């Protein structure tokens, strides 16, 4: 537990509070943008002559797919602002996942847009000439072709398979070039896109929308970094917990004004030569207090390994907190907490926050004894709250049952499971197994909470 270091009384940090935004607002904004984009195209006569010739049909389709491609791109960019409006409602991990999906949607529309354009262009003069004009013949198309290639490579590099082949640095810098690609492709929309080239109002709306969103990203992301840099934390202690598992406590006088909640995570950036430019996500492993923030970190990759080897006194810039999976979800109900591996970190913080009435049951899954950490702490916390701990330790093959999270096994262990709130943290496969099992055992899905396990 964090040590008392200042003379100020130690208290829990205040909760960041929830967002004012609702699902319906998000739907309204997406609907608005789609209405404007499709309406603009329709109103400009996008459908005139649709049935009459292949060229007009293909021109209509290349226009609308181009516009939808841009719309998907703009929505994806709104998500990377990480605006608290959305983050406090949906959580950063969900925002980033939607960002990825929108990236894929954008690329699909882009491919369709290219196919339809080449088709339309090739009618008078052949495919080869069409490609020639679309990669240089028409004004700004050379620029656009390069931009398109960049955007396409960025999307490709973010597909799971390619992403896994790349180092983080490589991926990150490839990903940043997307702004260059988007700027290069933007030119042809304004010069050649017949929705914007001839209609001043539409053009200003479109340019304005792009300017606002890009400024928003710069403001929001740089702002968050600048704010965090102005209130840096320092490593107060580093504790070896288990094989490859370390907990790190960060302290700083600024924590008094800080808001955070158990179950959230931060993007931590060591201010050390060669590392300052990259931030990685780590979950809190205790209730955040004015005395410090504790993170439990398992060395799983280059970045987390560097974090476990951090020295006491190192300056750390902590951006955040992020995440919406917090023990408040339990409310007045009873709780079942399931931890897998280093997912025990957030589970400890949940447990610490829970009321005695929650009678928490903790299932702790780990591959070997050596990986088990914080067990004594958990046992003490559980005892105070009339709960109990079950550990499932060993490689999967050595477990007595094939699926320890099947509904039968869960119900036998926890007869009142259906009335409990389930919170899971751990590897994706385990999270899925627990979700499946508890749903089948009768837990309503709004009572099952999980967040991706960070390091």
């Amino acid at each position, binding site marked *: 537990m964090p040590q008392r270091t200042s003379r100020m009384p130690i208290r829990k940090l205040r909760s960041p509070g*929830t*967002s004012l935004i609702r699902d319906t607002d998000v739907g309204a904004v997406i609907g608005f943008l789609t209405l404007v984009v499709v309406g603009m195209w329709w109103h400009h006569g996008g459908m005139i002559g649709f049935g009459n010739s292949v060229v007009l049909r293909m021109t209509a389709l290349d226009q609308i797919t181009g516009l939808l491609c841009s719309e998907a791109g703009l929505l994806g960019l709104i998500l990377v602002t990480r605006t608290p409006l959305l983050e406090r409602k949906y959580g950063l991990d969900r925002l980033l996942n939607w960002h990825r999906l929108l990236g894929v949607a954008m690329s699909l529309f882009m491919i369709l847009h290219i196919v339809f354009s080449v088709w339309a262009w090739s*009618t008078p003069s052949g495919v080869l000439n069409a490609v020639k004009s679309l990669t240089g013949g028409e004004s700004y198309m050379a620029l656009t072709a390069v931009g398109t290639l960049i955007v396409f490579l960025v999307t490709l590099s973010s597909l799971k398979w390619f992403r896994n082949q790349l180092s983080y640095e490589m991926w990150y810098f490839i990903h940043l070039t997307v702004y260059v690609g988007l700027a290069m492709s933007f030119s042809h929309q304004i010069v*050649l896109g017949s929705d914007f080239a001839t209609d001043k109002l539409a053009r200003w709306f479109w340019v304005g929308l792009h300017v606002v969103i890009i400024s928003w990203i710069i403001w929001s992301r740089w702002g968050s970094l600048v704010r965090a840099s102005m209130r840096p934390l320092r490593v107060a202690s580093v504790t070896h917990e288990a094989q490859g598992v370390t907990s790190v406590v960060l302290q700083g006088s600024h924590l008094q004004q800080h808001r955070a909640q158990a179950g959230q995570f931060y993007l931590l950036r060591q201010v050390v030569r060669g590392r300052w430019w990259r931030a990685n996500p780590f979950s809190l492993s205790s209730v955040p207090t004015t005395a410090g923030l504790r993170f439990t970190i398992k060395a799983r990759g280059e970045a987390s390994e560097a974090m476990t080897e951090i020295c006491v006194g190192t300056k750390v810039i902590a951006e955040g907190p992020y995440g919406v999976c917090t023990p408040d979800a339990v409310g007045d109900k009873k709780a079942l907490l399931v931890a897998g591996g280093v997912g025990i970190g957030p589970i400890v913080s949940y447990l610490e926050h829970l009321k005695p009435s929650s009678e928490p049951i903790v299932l702790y899954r780990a591959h070997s004894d050596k990986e088990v950490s914080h067990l004594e702490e958990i046992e003490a916390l559980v005892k105070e709250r009339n709960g109990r701990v079950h550990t499932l330790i060993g490689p999967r093959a050595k477990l007595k049952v094939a699926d320890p999270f099947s509904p039968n096994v869960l119900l036998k262990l926890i007869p009142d499971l259906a009335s409990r709130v389930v919170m899971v943290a751990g590897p994706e496969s385990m999270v899925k197994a627990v979700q499946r099992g508890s749903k089948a055992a009768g837990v309503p899905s709004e009572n099952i909470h999980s967040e991706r396990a960070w390091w």
Partner: protein
Amino acid sequence: MSQNRPPIGRQSKPTFARQVMPAVALTAVGVGFVSMLDGATSGSVGLTAVATNPVVDPNAPTTTVTDPNTTAPIALPTNTTLAPTPVPAAVAPVIAAPVTVAPANPGACNGDVVASPSAQFQYGVIQLQTQFTTANVLCNVTVLQFPNDRRTSVQINNYALPIYNQEAVQRHSAKIRAVSGATYSWQAYVAALQAVLDSRP
């Protein structure tokens, strides 16, 4: 521990108005915005009509050719300049619009015939001849000049210019869509046509 805001992820149930109002407001804004844009005025007539009388008919009732010399040179899209060359109506039109508007009342298209200034762009010159109804509505466009020094130019323009003619006549304006592959011609065409329209009362 005091909390002045509800904790993360716990929102009170929104009222019906709170759920619906943003959507209604944004839809109103969206519809308002779209309706403020320049529209395709002819609605959705489609390019179906293949009219028979494509050209300025030499036997048509007397026409006046307005000299567009009076039109001041205007700012143009990239690489296009307008030369205010008056062209006599006698020049044979090269490409004719196969559409005449309002076939139900064929006598309508008998107003002024106006030659456009020549719009110069990187592949040559486009010049149009336009005709208006007595009510001053654009009702016919023919092309007097277009770049024909290269095979590709001829090919592209033979293909695209009739479509531009059709669209211009259908929309009674220079707000026409570019045909893929003929963007430069489109810019010059729009410039020439707009110059004529601007010179009309």
